[in-house]
């Protein structure tokens, strides 16, 4: 059942929110030993909210667009009263008093929050393997990564822990796990969704985005969380379009840009997935336009330099002074020891690597060569995208170079891991909306995906094209086979 169908079932009285929520919670209990996707489950809070929706329903009161729909939330987003870990030991014991802006909007829409999903530590990773709670498993193959950093959210949705999740996307962290787990994942235009209450990784890239099983589900979630916010100076006033209506528009007349260089370096199946999507869009009446992104090959280094630089400042507040982990100190230890030891103990290796590299890139004498040069590349890439999007309405390409890879593949080669973001970081550098859409399974039974990108604040066109891709692509099984097998006691 899709999120939209679930909302309708509750709104029409066909199901109670309590029954739907209980089913999601028992699904978590059954599957978590195999998947490890949740860092916190709030059964009481979820059931209480479901009961409120049922009471409102009984009273005939107006219901919000997500009334009674159980959802999960990436544990980088503050939910009042639930622990906020950011996937790190550093935030141990920290419980925010206030909801993030996106959570306020979900609650206003009537959503039920099941709990928090695991993530790469501080959202730094593409595989979910840097999470302090250990990696979540891909439900399509329990020996493979779900992608990251919103890996727990992807696994939760794919495994039926509710009907959708909010992830965050800094360099592909919504789209990559969506692709690897057979879901729709959307990164909105920078400024479309408030970042207030979201633990910052790289502030000029971070965006909260929906993950769901259908394009229309993602559209509904986006419509709820999008819009200006007075607590985020980078949020923008642009009007929020009718995203669900956009899903009904045909692809006829859409100009779909294809980047030839992006078809190199892909596995055959991923390559074919992009090409067959292109053919199906053409068959639906879209026109293919070849576009070039001359600087896209510089996206990964530029992205990582800027992201690490911003992260080095964003993570300075985790110092052991006011909240989170503080190292045990001897009476003679000084302030620097408090900082050094707390941070050494609290942060994992990948986070430390990025803080150190970001600090370096901003240092006097290196700033021009690294941070500043990366910003110049960013402007060039932005210019490339603007030029390309004058020739077309959406750009079609891969989300990831391949389907999900085995756990532990890149543990000792961070640069190889960073290269997995080659197709996703472009949208973050340019601040444009992008989404990953599943297009069937590989021969090995793993989800295949394509990526679409559109102009700034044109999520409607992005969703219109994605809906067409979804309609014409081979359908995925209703539940991941590997998980079903594991739950039935098989291997």
């Amino acid at each position, binding site marked *: 059942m899709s999120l939209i169908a679930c909302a309708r079932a509750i709104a029409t009285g066909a199901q109670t929110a309590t029954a739907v929520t209980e089913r999601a919670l028992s699904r978590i209990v059954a599957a978590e030993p195999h998947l490890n996707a949740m860092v916190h489950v709030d059964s009481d809070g979820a059931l209480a909210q479901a009961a409120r929706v049922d009471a409102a329903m009984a009273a005939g009161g107006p219901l919000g667009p997500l009334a009674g729909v159980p959802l999960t939330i990436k544990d980088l*987003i*503050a939910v009042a009263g639930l622990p*906020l870990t*950011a996937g790190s030991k550093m*935030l141990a014991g*920290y419980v*925010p008093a*206030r909801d*993030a802006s996106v959570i306020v909007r979900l609650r206003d829409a009537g959503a039920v929050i099941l709990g928090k999903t695991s993530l790469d530590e501080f959202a730094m990773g593409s595989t979910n393997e840097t999470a302090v709670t250990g990696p979540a498993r891909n439900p399509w193959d329990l020996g493979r990564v779900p992608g990251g950093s919103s890996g727990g959210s992807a696994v939760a949705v794919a495994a039926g822990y509710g009907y959708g999740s909010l992830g965050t996307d800094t360099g592909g962290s919504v789209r990559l796990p969506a692709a690897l787990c057979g879901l729709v994942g959307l990164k909105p235009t920078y400024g479309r969704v408030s*970042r*207030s*209450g*979201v*633990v*910052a990784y*790289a*502030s*000029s890239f971070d965006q909260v985005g929906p993950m769901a099983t259908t394009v229309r589900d993602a559209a509904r979630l986006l419509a709820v969380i999008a819009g200006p916010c*007075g*607590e*985020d*100076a*980078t949020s923008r006033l642009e009007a929020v379009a009718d995203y669900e209506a956009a899903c009904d528009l045909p692809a006829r007349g859409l100009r779909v840009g294809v980047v030839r260089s992006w078809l190199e370096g892909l596995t055959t199946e991923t390559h074919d997935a992009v090409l067959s999507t292109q053919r199906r869009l053409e068959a639906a009446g879209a026109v293919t336009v070849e576009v070039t992104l001359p600087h896209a090959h510089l996206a990964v280094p530029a992205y990582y330099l800027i992201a690490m*630089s*911003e992260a*080095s*400042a964003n*993570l*300075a*507040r985790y*110092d052991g*002074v*006011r*909240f989170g982990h503080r190292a045990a100190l001897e009476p003679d230890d000084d*302030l620097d020891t408090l*900082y050094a030891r707390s941070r050494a103990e609290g942060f994992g290796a990948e986070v430390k690597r990025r803080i150190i590299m970001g*600090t370096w890139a*901003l*240092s*006097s004498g290196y*700033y021009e060569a690294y*941070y500043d040069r990366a910003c110049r590349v960013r402007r060039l890439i932005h210019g490339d995208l603007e030029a390309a999007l004058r020739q077309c309405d959406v750009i079609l390409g891969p989300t990831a170079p391949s389907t999900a890879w085995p756990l532990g593949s890149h543990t000792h080669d961070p640069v190889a891991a960073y290269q997995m973001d080659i197709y996703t970081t472009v949208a973050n550098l340019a601040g444009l909306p992008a989404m990953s859409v599943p297009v069937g399974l590989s021969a090995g039974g793993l989800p295949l995906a394509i990526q679409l990108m559109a102009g700034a604040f044109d999520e409607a066109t992005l969703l219109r094209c994605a809906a067409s891709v979804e309609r014409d692509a081979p359908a995925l099984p209703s539940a991941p086979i590997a998980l079903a097998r594991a739950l039935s006691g098989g291997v």
Partner: protein
Amino acid sequence: MQWETVIGLEVHAQLRTQTKLFGAASASYGGAPNSHVDAVSLGLPGALPVLNREAVRMAALAGLATHCDVQLRSVFARKNYFYPDLPKGYQISQFDEPICLGGFLDIESDGTPLRVGITRIHMEEDAGKSSHHAQGSWVDLNRAGVPLIEIVSEPDLRTPEQAVAYLRELRAILVYIGVNDGNLEEGSFRCDANVSVRRKGQSALGTRCEIKNLNSFRGIRDAIHYETARQIRRIEAGEAIVQQTRLWDVDQGRTAAMRSKEEAHDYRYFPDPDLPPLLIDADDLKTWAASLPELPAAKRARFQTTLGLDVAVAQHLCEDPTTADRFERALDEDQSPSRARSLASFLSGRIAGALNKSTRSWLDLDAALSDLAEVHDQWRAGKLSNKMLGDLLAAAFEAEDLFAKALAQARAAVGLLEQDTGELDAAIDRILAANPGQVAAYQGGKPKLLGFFVGQVMQALGGKANAQEVNRKLQERLGDPA
């Protein structure tokens, strides 16, 4: 004189906004520790800065009042360093694109005018306050995030007196335009001084030291004197000046090294990605410029030229806008120079003196300014004698009532002189007749004896006589001394 001191000043002035620069917490001074805080000033995960536009208006006003070019686009940056009273691990400050550039301030020191360049004014947030106790170090974040402007002068100042004149003028301007309360003790107006020395005639600047912890005008003057002497002493002894930050120790009367350039932080400034560039609307800027009040220099000039006040009196009245305003409200319509001069000295002499001896403040007098002016006018017209005025003011200031009421009661009790000419003439007759010797002496060439006769007559009338009238009549009767 073979040495010259070169001084540049950095002033941190707290803007008088209700809330902090980037959050909703109160920006007011004091309060229980950590009571004026919110998620933003605590640096909680996910808290984001949102710029206080009122602080922008105030910073722009400061620029307009000091002849700066207010930039329609400026940028906030992160200044990175670790300290417990800096919750985010970085301070949000403007760096290479500040809100104001290239202004100046005209000052006068020792009667010589001097134009002091202002390099820039930038906006930034204040840090919190750390204090160290036996039980450990405590942090109070009430001040963290409070809006500041930093006003950086060119190294155009040459003497401690010029430095103080510049600071007094700058402080007066900021208070006049309502952006700062000018309070040095509470630290809402703070100053760091960059001091170097060079041989007279030399154009290159010497190595400078930055002096911090200057929280009074006197401290600033003394510290610069001390630092000048210290640097000259070192150079003359063949030692080099080390570029460093030095703290002024008020008790010891000396500066001491805090950190040297080698130990200086690398702040790793970069544009704050949470804050879009600060854009100012050109029309807003015009509105703000038009809203500027009369500034202290213009007011002083007007007080001198139109009202005929002395330089020192004008200076004193214009040091803060409330004093000037009080004077002008008392002055009201009759602005003749003789009355203005008399009223100014009446207020800063008699009234200030009476205030000093009482428990009242100027604030209490505000409702009775026109009544006080009337008392002054009556005294000046001779309808109140000095003694009567003294009695009247003493009664009014000592009473428990609201001042306006107390003054009215005192005025009613003391009354006005309604000189009975016959009574005065009779008293003069009596006194002159009783003192023939003194009359002869006066007329013989001792004009100072006039005071004796005035005193005798006043005494005879119980103090209730117009002294000027008594003078005039006595001179008439006694004739010119030979």
